[in-house]
């Protein structure tokens, strides 16, 4: 059973570096406030690895069962 992840972004930490948007544009976008917003509610393991690259450590992924 594949693991799925729920994306959450801590707006107080996000500095709008654009790292997540650059690495996974299908999953993240910058809002007019220059903060990152998830474009999808669930992510795969690639996005989990992208979250590790955030210089502000603002992205949290919570594993949830697929289904």
């Amino acid at each position: 059973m594949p693991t799925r992840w729920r994306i959450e972004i801590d707006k107080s930490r996000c500095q709008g570096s654009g790292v997540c948007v650059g690495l996974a544009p299908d999953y993240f976008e910058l809002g007019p406030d220059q903060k990152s917003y998830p474009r999808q509610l669930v992510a795969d393991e690639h996005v989990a690895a992208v979250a590790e690259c955030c210089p502000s450590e603002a992205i949290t992924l919570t594993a949830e069962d697929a289904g």
Partner: protein
Amino acid sequence: VDDLATHSSGDKHLYFEMDEDYSYLHDHGERVVWLDYEKGMWLVGGHQELTEILGDDETFSSAHDLPNGRTPFKGVMVPPTPVRAVPIEMDPPEYFNFRRALAPRFNAASVRALSPRIVEYTNWCLDQVIEAGEADLFNDLIKLVPAMVTLHVLGLPVEDAALAADAVHRTGPDRFHLNPTWIHLYQRIRAAVDARRQEPADDLISYLQQIEVDGKRFTDLHIFEMAFTLIIGGMSTTAKLLLGAFSYYGVNKAERDRARADPQLIAEAVEEFLRYYSPVSFLTRTTTRDVCVAGKQIKKGDRVAFGFAAANRDPQAFDQPNSICIGRTPNRHLAFGHGMHFCMGSNLGRSEAATVIETVLGRIPEYELVPESVLAGEPGRKGRWGQRLMRGLPVAFPPGPRTGPGASLAPDFRMTTLP
């Protein structure tokens, strides 16, 4: 020299901490221009345009093919380096695993752990000059501390900091040529890579040898390339930021007193120094297709300079862009770039700068700039702040006692010199 910032004598205007070169494009209403520099390249200096193309890594490639000149892809440095700068000179998908591997070594917790050591390195530099009551703050401290920190992070001998700093602050077409200093540094990297294979330590080289990403390990060449990149990316950057900061505080005494009284304010000052002094004034890319930016037709294979410093003075993005406004909000500067290549060491650079400022202001809070520091500018065009690198930052202050560096450095610690 009561007020060095605005003092003028005859037709020579003397400026201390200001540099308006970066606003040249905007003074002429240009967003993108062609430069006759290194065989010609575009310079993008509009904040909005630059932010957009920083998100288009497919069109604006970071790739670097060696030997230089074999293809149009020359990476991000000017002149192109003899070693590929990894991972900044990589495109996806190759880039991703490198970024992912390095990230935990440069996160907030890793940087916090380095803080006591940064204080001790700063104190060692201050100890060398504090009894004399005068110093060249750039050559005696500012250029050294970021070099010491970078060498420590990598696991290379910290006593090479003076050599390494002089190598990376060199400008001109021969800055990366194989001279005795670069040969020495390359040998140090190779020796460390060999030694850590036998006996790992708590340093970046050991970490990169041990980590697996997608079931694969990094090669010795990749580790060498990453060490090279940290040397060219971690030293002159923070040093230029600090040079700006201490020039500014030398002139703006009220802000200096405020920072000293409440060191919590230093972080927001650093943010504005990042915008104003933009230590990395530009990096280059190579286009993979014809593209139009701000009405300019850029051809496939053209070199494009991403003008971070110019964009950080764009009046369309910042009110009073040529004034240093500590506490500026919002401050969407591009000093660290933007997008997937956003500076790997941003947390370290910010923290290092704030720590050095706090430590120096704690020990020589009343340093004065001496007249030799003053730059002469042409009438109508303010002094070029970059010249400060050549001139250093001579200061005077009431002599004080040595404190000792603490546990990080041996009592007889000395910088390496080459014969």
